């Protein structure tokens, strides 16, 4: 138990520090990298909570796909940080008030009887969270699960329909024409008088 608590505080500490670093560093690329670290450590905390599937998904989807995309965007755009930071001191009081209200709300809600849950028992070592989720998805919820898949397919079809168009100006090769080319199309013999 002690080791677990120590591990939790280790990850939680890194999480808080990297989140703070993410909003304070000057270099936007560093900020994105700190966000990656924050996601990664929260995935580790989820693993501690026996939610392996969520933890792995967080790493795969957010760290692996979304944040890499973010990184590309940040690297390609020329972001003027000085301009974005200009109003920091002015907006700070408002931000603090909003933050305080949110914290108060969370404390109130977590103290309601609805959240007064008994501590869940630890599962055995061979218990697989992923397997349980998979079984539920492919038995009880198989029909909605398939429909959700169809919705994603429609999203793909719709996105391609709306954006794919034949470009007029793109230069492309036509292999058939290249093969059928004749000597006289390319070379013109001009007879000239010798001088």
């Amino acid at each position, binding site marked *: 138990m002690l080791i677990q608590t120590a591990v939790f505080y280790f990850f939680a500490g890194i999480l808080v520090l990297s989140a703070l670093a993410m909003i304070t560093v000057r270099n936007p690329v560093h900020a994105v990298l700190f966000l990656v670290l924050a996601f990664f450590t929260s995935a580790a905390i989820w693993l501690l909570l026996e939610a392996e599937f969520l933890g792995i998904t967080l790493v795969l989807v957010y760290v692996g796909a979304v944040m890499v995309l973010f990184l590309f965007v940040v690297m390609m755009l020329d972001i003027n940080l000085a301009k974005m930071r200009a109003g920091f001191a002015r907006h700070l009081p408002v931000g603090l008030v909003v933050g305080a209200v949110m914290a108060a709300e969370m404390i109130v809600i977590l103290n309601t009887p609805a959240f007064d849950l008994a501590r869940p028992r630890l599962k055995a070592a061979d218990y697989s969270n992923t397997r349980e989720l998979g079984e539920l998805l492919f038995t*009880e*919820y*198989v*029909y*909605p699960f398939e*429909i*959700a898949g*169809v*919705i994603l*397919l*429609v*999203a793909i*079809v*719709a996105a391609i*329909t*709306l954006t794919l*168009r034949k470009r007029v100006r793109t230069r492309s090769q036509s292999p058939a024409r290249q093969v059928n080319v004749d000597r006289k199309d390319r070379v013109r013999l001009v007879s000239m008088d010798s001088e």
Partner: protein
Amino acid sequence: MDSLNSDVLLALPEIALLAATSAVLLISLYAGRASEALAYWLSLAALAITAVLVDFTSMQPELFAFGEMYINDPLAVAIKLFACLTVATVFIYARPYLRQREHARAEFYILGLFATLGTLVMASAHNFVLVYLGLELLSLCLYALVVFERDSSDASEAAIKYFVLGAIASGMLLYGMSILYGLTGSLDLAEIHAYLGNRGTDSVALVFALAFIVVGLAFKFGAVPFHMWMPDVYQGAPTAITLFIATMPKLAAFVMAIRLLSNGLQELLTDWQQMLIILTVLSVVFGNVIAIAQSNIKRMLAYSAISHIGFILLGILSGSAFGYAAALFYTVIYVLMAAGTFGVLSLLAQPGRDLDRLVDLKGLGSYNPWFALIMLLLMFSMAGVPLTVGFYAKLYILQSLIHDGMLWLAILAILMSVVGAFYYLRVVKYMYFDDADEQFRLQRSPLAHTVLSVNGLLVVALFIFPNALLNYCMQVLN
């Protein structure tokens, strides 16, 4: 394994439609120039197969599949059959228009089929999750279809409005559903119904959740005051797409209302009745009055649709089996009339120019007497003039209202129908009593002309024999 087999057997229409749609999607990718024609014929075949399978599953003894998530009651069967028929008709009407505009792309049919699948899912939904998923499947296809003509700024504007408002409506609906889940601990419609029956309904939170669900429904229906997207979408979308949006989704909205309000929340009848009364009064009044001021015929028909939706909700709010049957009758008849009306408009469109001003119809009676007559019948039917089935549709709704003692609502509905008759008759006046400024040549398509003629004449035929359809509606909703 046995139960899975019977599940699959019951859901065969959905499975077949999904498989067929995916096949059309793949085939049209590789068919090159023929892809549009191929997609069109294959889509019609897919719809026919689906309809046959729906008929087949209606004979299955089981009522539920997938652990009571899927229900195969007569209402689901009826909505599925009507939806397949409507979409096939819409495809037939829309094709000449799309080919003429040179954006005849296979995606129209593919997205149309996916939208149909969404409606099928909603028709068989017996669980909040499936109502929502079916709705999103349908809506996503509609958003993409509105902006099908990509270079049109009107269509883009309409699509953005539709998308944003639709997303808000979905959020409202989900919020209401989540509160209900929190209160009842179930997403299953029958379980929620049973819970409300046992525990009573005197909870503020229940009414709170109900309000969100009704608002979400009203958005999807397009009832005042949640109608803002309707005129813009009807006007901004190409006529063939408007034809699609004006017809099939109304069936989906109707079945969603019945599933949520009747199957799930019948115990809260007195609460949602009051909410619907506000919606219907506003819809019938504003729809009819604002339609008078329109000069664009698609926009006028959008406001007319709002008033018709008011009528459909009038049937639902009575909360009785006859009221529901009258509402289903009205929905089917409205879809029939809207398909015909927008069918005429999309067949009369010229390359590069829609027929969308009222004055464009001037003199249609002199240079195209047959389709002017069809249009006349449809307009009379929308107005509710006897000799057309629109009269019976309104009559049954009024009967159900009077039967439930809501006389003042019935009188208001009649008064507003009289107001509405003005703008329908104005269309007739333009067609027959004015000289043509320019002639709109009908696009050539024998199939579309035949179906459209049948569609127009059906309005009269159903006036003579309304009982078959009414009895069917009663039987479905009993």
